[in-house]
């Protein structure tokens, strides 16, 4: 049997979903459901996936999807898991699926509450770095220098992207990890590890958005890889908020940031000064990360 056929049996996503061509979030959820299924229930907050999932009675996934309002994902997920436990179905994995808006911004309070209570759920943020379902408006996950429709040229996103991983680590949750669709084995390993742990788990997936980022549809996996290789989106995991470990690449191998920025129209208006500023910001974050990780875990 071919590997592809093996995977096909595990596939939970159904062809004919409503994602744009090259959607990173569609691919992320494909890997996610394949890794965690079939005994899976998804709580889905307002985001691109509200559309990708299709209009009932149609559906894009073989598992139940419970839609919920924008700020509520962390709490609805908590309630669903405890409700299933009360009804003798505690073995079902409950995944909360949210975009960056539903995680970094409007969903942060419920996310923090669920993390603090150490609810037994996996919160997955697919981060396309802006409100993409409404057409590319700035969120607190939008990187410095990017153009959005609420920061149109000559404006640009000012201020840093919020460091959600640090926020989650500060909650002392059992497990948090970053992942991209360019490293599906790494992503699957992290999801499987998350599933084997009880308590609150957080997975942060970078999700390239061709229409929003102004990138080629065929470039989603490549961009995801460049994000990792430039240090724009490092791959690592955090156990119990304190044990940080890189899962890909060393300090010395970072590619120049321009390799990543040049392939996206959202960064087109960035002048040299801004690119240097963004590079300095990433260098700071890299330095912080390396300090957290410690020499032994820099892989």
């Amino acid at each position: 049997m071919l590997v592809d056929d093996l995977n096909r049996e595990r596939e939970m996503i159904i062809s004919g979903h409503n994602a744009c061509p090259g959607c990173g979030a569609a691919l992320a959820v494909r890997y996610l459901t394949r890794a965690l299924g079939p005994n899976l229930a998804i709580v889905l907050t307002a985001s691109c996936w509200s559309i990708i999932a299709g209009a009932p009675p149609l559906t894009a996934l073989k598992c139940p999807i419970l839609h919920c309002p924008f700020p509520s994902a962390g709490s609805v997920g908590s309630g669903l898991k405890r409700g299933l436990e009360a009804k003798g179905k505690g073995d079902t994995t409950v995944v909360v699926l949210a975009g960056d808006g539903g995680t970094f911004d409007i969903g942060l309070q419920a996310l923090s509450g669920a993390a603090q209570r150490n609810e037994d759920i996996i919160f997955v943020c697919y981060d396309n770095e802006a409100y993409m379902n409404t057409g590319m408006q700035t969120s607190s996950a939008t990187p410095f220098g990017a153009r959005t429709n609420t920061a149109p040229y000559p404006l640009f996103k000012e201020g840093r992207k919020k460091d959600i991983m640090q926020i989650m680590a500060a909650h002392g949750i059992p497990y948090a990890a970053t992942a991209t669709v360019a490293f599906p084995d790494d992503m699957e390993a992290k999801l499987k590890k998350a599933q084997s742990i009880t308590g609150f788990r957080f997975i942060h997936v970078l999700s390239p958005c061709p229409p929003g980022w102004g990138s080629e549809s065929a470039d989603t996996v490549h961009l995801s890889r460049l994000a990792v290789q430039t240090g724009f989106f490092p791959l690592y995991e955090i156990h119990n908020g304190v044990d940080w470990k890189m899962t890909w690449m060393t300090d010395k191998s970072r590619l120049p940031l321009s390799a990543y920025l040049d392939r996206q129209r959202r960064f087109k208006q960035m002048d040299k000064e801004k690119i240097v500023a963004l590079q300095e910001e990433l260098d700071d974050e890299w330095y912080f990360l390396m300090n957290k990780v410690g020499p032994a875990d820099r892989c």
Partner: protein
Amino acid sequence: MMAFEVINGSQAAAIAVQRAGIDLVAAYPITPQTVIVETLADFAAKGELGGEFVSLESEYSALSFCNGASAAGARVFTATASHGLAYMHEMIHWCSGARFPIVMANVNRAIGAPWCLDPDQGDSLSQRDTGWLQIYCSGAQEVFDTILQAFALSEELLLPCMVVFDGFYISHTYEAVDIPEIQDVGKFIGPPSFGAQVIPGEPGNLHGMASAENQQRLVRSRHEAMLRAPALYEEINGRYERLFGRKYGAIDAVMPPGARTAILTAGATAETVRWCLPDLEQTGLIQLRMFRPFPAKQLCAVLETYDIEKVLVVDRNCSIGAGGIFAQELKSALYGLARPPAVHDLILAGGVDLTGALIKNALSKMPLENRSTELWGVE
């Protein structure tokens, strides 16, 4: 087996929830509701809750949590008041649209600005269009009985139910309350049987995008389900009476012989009026218990049967720019009556206390030639 206990309205609500066989309680504090969740926490601490007690980080999350748990088929409860209810507003709509039979107690309190703790009903009344059943209680016994009945009503209709009572006048006032044993309550309401929406292993795209046409079909089916509530409530009360000897209606009227004036009100003010009736001439009481659905048919039947000429509505609320809300709804219900009574409104917005003197004063300012008078509790 029954036993009287001297408890306040908040404790009555909590004990009813415990007796109902609850799976999950979602808690967040707010004055004057806090005693409800504290009492439930006491049950949990003693291992007597029967379900799980979870403290959330906001009212919005408390109701969101109920939403998730209800999707798994669990029986859930939460309680709030005032700003807490306002903060829940988005989820209040959502829970009804998603047909989750959640029971929530709301303890009336004014909404700011400025801060005010008194029992204005504007908090719950501003949620009147959200698709929740609303039942108003006038005392602790009624709170206890209504919470139990609310679970039965809500789970049958698959509509959430808000049990409403006044802050302090009911929530913090002690009365003798007849509390049935838990095994007897089990004869009235068994484990939840409304079924889970989320079924692991089965695909389901629950509450995803609908067209305008499908949205209308869903709105209409909720509307029609809610219109079944008064008749179903009567049936539920028939069962309740056979077990526990007490029953309530969508409205409860007390009409002394020869009464030509009726005072219509909801909540603790109804109890005040009941006590004042012997001092009033030719005046009866219509206690509005069910507000959603609005029992227009029952109200008109009482007004016609007793040939009521004048109604004094006591509204501890005000829809700014329109007046007292119960008065508005009554006027709308009277449309089409051959001889509709005059409707006068005593507005106690802010949570102003209703006294016998205020009632008498209001009744003296309603000459027969006036069809509608707006009176205020304080100058």
